[in-house]
């Protein structure tokens, strides 16, 4: 196995509030090798964005890493000083957020914003170099007439183009780790496809490890190598995309796959197989298996005993946390 660029082991994140602590992530382990794409999948409140922010050292006020380790290319980030993490952020690791209009500064030209990150991390020594490289980066992410667009302000660009600028900025310093948090969720499908192509191209060019945080299983099926399914702050299933999505073994993953409306489904109308109930909020996680109140297969054991993530089947690093894993799909 290739050496992991990102190696997170047993990560626990808590939210500290007036009346105590609430667990947000509970023992999440995940590693990504260079050139590999791993999708972190889950619904709102599962903790997937908090995982990404914890890695970037950007957890919001009140949240903190309570246990576990986060190693980036061998360097431990948990407990590292803010300046040390800042030096890596935007350089060795970078992140693309869902909403490009709130991630770009409205009052600065996009070229200058890209140039800033190049200068900050010492990739370009002079302003002229940085400007030239910014044009080059805009060309790489498929922005037409990059030498003119480099002087545009964010509001002069469409949502898809702004997201391309974000990708250009994220790959500016050839990061080893690239995190995309719902980076195409706000875009129209036609634009989404283009931006995913750009992201994939950027990753291939830089050989970065890519962490794709998303709720969209279609996107996962298209570009990820491995998938980690998160539910109520815990990993419930992981493995290669081909194995996990083609034959889910955790009832939650299976339920998600069945609930997605698809163009390829047979017939129209009819009842969509929905998962009953709703994802629990942090602080109100059920006992035992966190999924048991919504699970059709749950029995008494599931109510009291939390299943441990254990290797499953013959697949490559395939694992599932379930007392009654599904072995075949209908």
């Amino acid at each position, binding site marked *: 196995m290739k050496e992991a660029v990102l190696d997170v082991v047993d990560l626990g994140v808590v939210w500290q509030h007036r009346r105590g602590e609430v667990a947000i992530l509970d023992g999440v382990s995940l590693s990504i090798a260079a050139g590999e794409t791993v999708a972190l999948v889950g*619904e*709102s409140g599962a903790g997937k964005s908090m995982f990404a922010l914890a890695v970037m050292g950007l957890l919001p006020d009140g949240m903190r890493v309570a246990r576990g380790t986060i190693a980036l290319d061998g360097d431990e980030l948990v407990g590292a000083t803010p300046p040390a993490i800042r030096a890596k952020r935007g350089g060795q690791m970078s992140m693309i957020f869902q909403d490009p209009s709130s991630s770009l500064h409205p009052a600065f030209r996009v070229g200058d914003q890209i140039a800033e990150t190049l200068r900050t991390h010492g990739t370009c020594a002079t302003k002229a170099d940085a400007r030239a490289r910014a044009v080059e980066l805009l060309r790489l992410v498929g922005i*037409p007439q990059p030498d003119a667009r480099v002087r545009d302000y964010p509001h002069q660009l*469409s*949502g*898809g*183009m702004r997201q391309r600028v974000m990708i250009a900025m994220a790959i500016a310093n050839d990061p080893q780790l690239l995190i995309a948090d719902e980076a195409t969720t706000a875009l*129209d*499908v*036609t*634009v*989404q*496809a*283009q931006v995913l*192509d750009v992201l994939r191209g950027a990753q291939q060019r830089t050989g970065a490890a890519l962490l794709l945080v998303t*709720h*969209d*299983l*279609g*996107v*996962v*099926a*298209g570009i990820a190598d491995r998938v980690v399914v998160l539910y109520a702050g815990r990993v419930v299933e992981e493995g290669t*995309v*081909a194995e996990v*999505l*083609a034959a889910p073994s955790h009832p939650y993953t299976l*339920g*998600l*796959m069945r*609930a*997605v*409306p*698809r*163009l*390829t*489904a047979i017939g*129209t*109308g*009819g*009842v*969509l*197989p*929905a*998962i*009953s109930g*709703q*994802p629990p909020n942090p602080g109100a996680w059920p006992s035992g298996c966190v999924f048991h109140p919504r699970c059709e297969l749950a029995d008494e054991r599931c109510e009291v005993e939390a299943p441990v993530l254990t290797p499953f089947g013959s697949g490559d690093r395939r694992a599932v946390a379930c007392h009654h894993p599904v072995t075949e799909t209908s």
Partner: protein
Amino acid sequence: MTALLEVEHLTKHFAARRGDGVVHAVDDISFAIAPGETLALVGESGCGKSTTGRLVLALLAPTAGAIRFDGADIAGRSPRALHDLRRRAQIVFQDPYASFDPRRRVGDSVVEPLVAQGRRAEAHARRDELFTMVGLDPAAAHRYPHEFSGGQRQRLAIARALSVQPDLVVLDEPVSALDVSIQAQVLNLLADLRKELGLAFLFISHDLAVVRHVADHVAVMHLGELVETAPAVDLYANPRHPYTRALLSAVPDPDPAVERARRRIVLEGELPSPLDPPSGCRFRTRCWQAVDRCTTEVPPLRDLASGHAVACHLA
């Protein structure tokens, strides 16, 4: 059968914020919805589908064209006509967080349309029934919006729309903000209610996979115009407009084998500005099949076969 809603040559132009430009939000579109039918209006952001939804409910005044509800033109917008329309046509918005007053108990919000109709006595009596209808506990009526999840709030929005027993509900991206597992629940609820109450839906969405699941008829909108309309089965089996084909080819599938074999039509360039739409066919700047004629001549929406109409010179 007479149509419940009939829209003819509907046009809405907005004055641009700066200069004397005109935003062509909706341009000369016509469609009809029969009682109990679901028509889906699909297209990318900015194509005018939400504006159309608001025009239909007289929340916006059209620049030109006619909107007839059960045969009566609502364009005159007399207070009396509007009062009647509000009883028979309602709307559910995308964002269930923004469509409830955070300081009002949800029970009061849900029956507000009844109160506005001057039916206060009925409002009290129907509240529990409405909560039960959308799968919520009537005891939750005294709670506030923040105590509900996104999916529950969308159920509340549906209950509110149904309070006046409308014939038509405009659903503007009703499940786009919801998680997959919740989205399926709400879609199933809408299907049940439709069957039970004989509702007609104008279902506005950008998601062709969701639309395939709910629609009888589909109208594809591009830059203010309808480019293809067809019974849903025909549209998905045999899309005729290049734009429809491109949209369908862009929908990802969660099955990795299907997804990796998917052949995608990549559209070049970006959606042109509705301030200055291209001459001739408005899709030509992104169309891989465009010929000279597309620049000079506007393709009319013409019926090809049994209700399948397309606006393309080459179809």
